């Protein structure tokens, strides 16, 4: 399994104190991505599943406040077989497991039995705009949200909120309608991740062009307004 970063974080990508693995390789090309070093499938450091299981077991005492292991990316499902094996073994050990994914994988439901929490990004409600901006449509993501809810899989949705992309009043209503149609209210949480520029310097270091305009940034008032619209659809908006 190729990992480009690992470390502990408290209550950011799942509950409690967690060991977070950033897996190498992504199937999308979102221009705001804050981990561009994770996009390519050829970089990262190889670890065997065995080594990671061993590391996690030695860390078990540090998973306080309901913590555990979160796999994120890159895109977790790009290394699906290894991910499935790792999660299965951790789940069997009684360790709280979580992944953060864009949901663009036919096989995602295979992981539900070994996942304590599924964090899924939904970047846009419109498949065409989604594809035009990120390189892939959102239909698989939407399908996997339905599957997760149908399976009773604990689910936390995240919307990266980017000015000029998905942050208008109309966008908020359209997201609200879509998530209602999917049955999200009362069954999954929603978190807004306002655009930030933390990744900008990495692009320069990697020799990549950073194309995000300043208009992508949002004010706290705009975020608050957006939140209220989503709440009007009965959605539970959380902040971690």
């Amino acid at each position: 399994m190729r990992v480009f970063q690992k470390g502990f974080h408290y209550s950011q990508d799942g509950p409690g104190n967690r060991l977070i693995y950033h897996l190498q390789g992504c199937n999308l090309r979102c221009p705001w991505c804050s981990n561009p070093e994770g996009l390519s499938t050829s970089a990262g450091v190889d670890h065997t599943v065995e080594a990671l299981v061993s590391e996690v077991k030695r860390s078990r005492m540090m998973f306080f406040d309901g913590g555990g292991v979160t796999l994120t990316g890159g895109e977790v499902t790009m290394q699906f077989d290894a991910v499935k094996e790792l999660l299965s073994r951790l789940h069997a050990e009684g360790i709280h497991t979580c992944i953060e994914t864009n949901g663009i994988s036919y096989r995602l439901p295979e992981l539900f039995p070994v996942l304590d929490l599924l964090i899924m990004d939904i970047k846009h409600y419109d498949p065409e705009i989604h594809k035009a901006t990120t390189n892939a449509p959102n239909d698989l993501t939407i399908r996997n949200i339905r599957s997760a809810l149908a399976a009773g899989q604990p689910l936390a949705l995240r919307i990266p909120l980017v000015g000029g992309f998905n942050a208008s009043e109309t966008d908020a209503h359209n997201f609200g309608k879509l998530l209602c149609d999917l049955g999200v209210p009362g069954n999954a949480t929603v978190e807004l991740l306002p655009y930030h520029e933390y990744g900008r310097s990495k692009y320069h270091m990697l020799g990549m062009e950073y194309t995000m305009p300043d208009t992508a940034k949002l004010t706290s008032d705009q975020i608050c307004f957006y939140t209220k619209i989503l709440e009007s659809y009965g959605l539970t908006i959380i902040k971690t």
Partner: protein
Amino acid sequence: MGRYHTIDHLLLTEKAKKLYREERDSHKILNGWFLAKEIAADNAEGAATLHPELRAAQELEAVVEKLPLEISDYAIFAGTQRDAFAASYALINPSFRVETFRGYCDPLEVYDYATATAEVSKERIAAMRSRYAKTPYVEALNKVYGTYGEYTDEVTFFIEQVTGHMIPDFRPALKYGVKALMSGIDAKISAGDLTKEQVMNLQAMKQSLGCAVKLAHRYADIAHVQQETADTQRKAELVLMEKNLRKVPEFGAENLMEAMQSYILLWQIMCLEQAPNPFAFSVGNADRIFEPYRAMDNLSRDEAAALFKHFLVFFNVGERSWAISQNVLISGKDTAGNDLTNEMSYAILDAYYDMNLPQPILSVKLHRGTPTKLYEELGRFFFTPGALTPSLFNDDSLFQTLIEHGVAEEDLPDYSVAGCQEPLIMGKDNANTTNSWLNMAKILELTLTGGKSAITGAEIGPQTDYEPEYILKNLRALFYEKLQFFCDQMADAANGASRALSLLPVPFLSCFEGGLETGYDSRNVEHQGTPYNGSGCLIHGLSVVADSFVAVDHLLKERPEDAADLIAACKCDFEGYEELHDWLKACPKYGNNLPEPDEEAVEVAEKVSDMVEGLKNYLGNSFRPDWSSPSTHLTYGYWVGATPDGRSSRQMMGYGIDPLFGAADSGLGLRTLSTMKLPFAKMNGGCASHFGIDPKYFTADTPEGKGVQFYERVLRPLFFNPANNNRAPFYLYVNVTTGDTLRKVLANPEKYAPNGVYIMRIHGTFVNFLDLSPAIQEDIILRLDPKSTCC
């Protein structure tokens, strides 16, 4: 308050605080040590033909008889350490500069800190300095430093004679009185079967014990005189003080106040015997020592704490608490695993917290059976900004390491801490803990350069002329070969310093270190006076060396075409090689639970521990590997050029067994996993590790709850982790704060430390952060590395 009916605990506390304030404000000049040296020197002139042990006892007696004494109006105990210490310890000296610090290799330098006054003239200081320079001890020591100057100038290694740094067992003297010990000596001599030297040594020890009675009676006389002019309240206190002084330490103590009074006078004489600057004597487990006496009076926790507050003030000398690194321990377990925390343990914690003094250091021994209550009570220390934080020991692990290195099982509960974190057996162990200091990073530099200093160009040790590629390909073998050479030189030099020091016998201390049984002085270099003996070696540069080996491996494998440039790049501190520098810095680093650098660190620690343990001291006993660097990671780093791990020239090294600051960037959790891999079974000389902890990760509502969280989130994973198949780490100190907070304290001390005291830990001791030199303040801030402080 029983027999102390004249003193209530609130009043006692108020007086203790005033006593400390008076010490800090009114004793800015410390010349007592100078007077003691002068009295001793005067006496020595008339005693040149005496046996050295007897001469030492006679000198001590003269000092005790003639040294000016006083009793403060705020004191309830008579006694002071003020006359044994100079205002000179570098790190808390505002004039300290890393750039000019050369170690403590000049035995005459302390005379720079004698202050000319109306009583002590400049000429008198100069004259005494000249007399001292001609003593056999100073001549012998200077000869050692002269011989090995080539190696110590740029701190390839450093050596020193070790004064202080032991843990006397005063328990028999407290219980039976020194008179009983003196009678024991008479009986032993009468029984025969002793050599002439042993008889003389024992006679000297007896004479030195008599000093304790003389000192007590001198103080009793002062207390008596002061009664004549005292008000009613103070008179009652002085009457009690005089009564106590007429009884102890001559006879056994029968309550807590007597026991503490007895202890203080014994300690005072022990320090006077080694003046100036016998740093780092340790009290040992104070809770176990004093609990029997607390119980005799059935004193409450508040009452016992109030008395202990005065005991604590005794350990603070002068304006900046110059008597550093004196250690008080509490809690721990016995050999059967029973917890030994008692009522006195909690009283001691109360006293420490309320007083929050820069000295003495507090250490807490933990084990799997440590009661939750103790963690609850510790919470207030960790989570009150500016409060002292105890250092933490793991009995479960340390017992095993000590027993594997020859400590008898029954002695294990009595291990204590001499100085920062070195474990010694109370009353039985002369470990010469700070005898030698090994700078592996400098030796790595010399390996790369063929023996020429990258700092000064000086030729240090054997010179070689290998091609750069050959050096890199054979780096480990060449490094260990060079290390062995310097270790051998270091041991010779260190033993030379110990032999020089043996010219100054310590009969009084020896009484409490096994000398009454062996008949030999603790410092004797031909006959072992203490049941356990060794010499310490503080090993520096673990992370620099391990990370450098890994970086060189990667370079040879991934950029062989650049290998030839590496040594040139290090020599010029990467100037013109910026891209290579960045690449080296990005190579895997120890402290992130990465197999490659962590395994390298384990190998370095194992090999070098074995190498050090293979060195023999003056008695043929092993040197003890001690993986700690009491601020010397900073001062020694200044003498090391750039290294292949990407560390810049003159930059500090990693502290003790810790990663280089900034290198462990994956959080405290993975740092903990890396630490757990190290060979703690081989670190019988000690090891040092510091965690910076960001307080925001502790969410409980009360200090008690946070104390338990601190155990669950930091200590249990590190010390008591069932997933760890290795010997667990056994030492940790923490600073629960952030660099940003400390910068605010420096910018606005009136707001953050209104009483002028903001306690932080540096290496094994705690200090008033505001007293520190700027370089040490910055070191503390840098090592509160934000990327490795969070959970």
